[in-house]
């Protein structure tokens, strides 16, 4: 059975600031990132949909110790965002000083752009991730 929305296609869309997911034709739930079956009811009857890319911050951290090869990126903020359509997604947050990031971020509305991780020797190529910014 063919995979409906593979990483390569999801990634190409994200690089155009389009966040793709899958809408279940059986129960209506939205699955992001794409999987073989609906993450709620396990139906394989899924249609590709574009999400708005907006939501609210559920949690965050400012990272000061990086993985090998990513030392130049610190400090940076990782967030988990509850998208308007329901699913949570991981990304980075720009426009906030990591040293100043505090609990007041939780619940803030964000909109989405993207940033590409160019990949390293372990990663089988590049990968884009959502790059969020606060909605004033």
């Amino acid at each position, binding site marked *: 059975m063919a995979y409906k929305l593979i990483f390569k296609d999801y990634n190409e869309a994200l690089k155009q600031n389009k966040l793709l997911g899958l809408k279940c034709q059986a129960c209506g739930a939205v699955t992001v990132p794409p999987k073989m079956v609906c993450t709620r009811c396990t139906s394989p009857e899924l249609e590709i949909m574009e999400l708005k890319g907006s939501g609210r911050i559920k949690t965050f951290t400012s990272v000061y110790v990086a*993985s090998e090869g990513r030392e130049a990126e610190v400090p940076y903020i990782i967030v988990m965002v509850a998208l308007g359509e329901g699913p949570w997604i991981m990304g980075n947050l720009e426009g906030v000083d990591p040293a100043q990031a505090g609990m007041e971020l939780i619940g803030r509305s964000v909109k989405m752009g993207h940033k590409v991780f160019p990949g390293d020797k372990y990663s089988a190529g590049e990968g884009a991730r959502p790059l969020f910014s606060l909605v004033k």
Partner: protein
Amino acid sequence: MRKVAVVGVGETRFSGTQEKTGVELFAEAAMEAINESNLKPKDIKALFVGNVLGDFSEGQGMVQAFAAENIGCFNVPANRYEGACASASMAVRDAFIWVASGFYDIVLAGGVERAATMGTALATRTFAMFSDARYEYPSGITFPAVFAMLAHLYSDTYGIPLEKLREQMAKVSIQSYRHGSINPKAHFYGKYPDMPVEKVLSSFMVSSPLTLHDCCPFSDGAATVILASEEVARKLTGKPVYITGVGQASSGPLSNQDEFLPRIRAREVSAKQAYDMAGVKPGDIDICELHDCFSIASLIAAESLGFFEYGKSGEAWEKGEADIGGKIAINPSGGLKSKGHPIGATGAGQVYEITKQLRGEVEPERQVAGARTGMTDTLGGDGGTLVNLILQRGW
């Protein structure tokens, strides 16, 4: 199903960078367990070995086959288990199932890792391989970052001001350091018997709000256990420790665990399996070695295992309820925080500690008096793999 007992255990010291190879470390722990069990290598019918990153730390894959040959268990089936930090617990659980089924009478299970040997940068990179490589690693996720986000979420979910929560987390690290300081097998043996809260809070920030002293170390080490059927066990030892309950469960990427967080659903599924199988309740557990890879991880684990109410673990630690002599003795070994975390061996190290505790064989200062029922809790990745084991005295 047959009853299955732990008849012998072995463990190297958990430590910083070792000069010994992975095979050498495993062999030392394995021979200790074999000797303690009054067995010979030829008696071992299969070897189940947790090893996560040997490929990266010393360019060694398939360590289990070389380990088997090295200790004289010639030509036995040898399996490697990889479930990130829960690998050795997976190995022990599978060994249990094979012996319980009657297929084997005696199996050696355990694990080995040289996480410290990799150094912080490579270890941080490779540990991040247990998050979703395509959908989460591009964000720069690291293991401290996973639990740092859970700490902020915990604070928000249960309405505990972050400064208060950070003090409670510090108390978790301080208790673990104290236990580990008197455990000769511990990475931080002889260090930090009485660390002040201020020192935990003011050490350097790894991933906010987690400081260095909220995080476990990268450790080298090995641990092994020998499991035998009840019939064999009774011939070998007067102190068989029975595995009476086992559980294991899995989950997808962290962001797909969404609304259940900061609780870890796989843990609650796994723990229920173990409790139901053993026919015991959280209140029956005298001692628990749980997966405190970070201070906040202890609070989350103790609640999902049913020892304390959700959002109340921090208070329990503050009151000493999680200490030796308290409501339940949590991590009297020092836990991952202080005993150390050689990830492929950690779960077997937990079984080592529970077995020694139930037998009454640990240092008097950290012996849990009269302990009859113990539990282990091992988490792999960000909840991707969870294993729980319940062990009880057989005498």
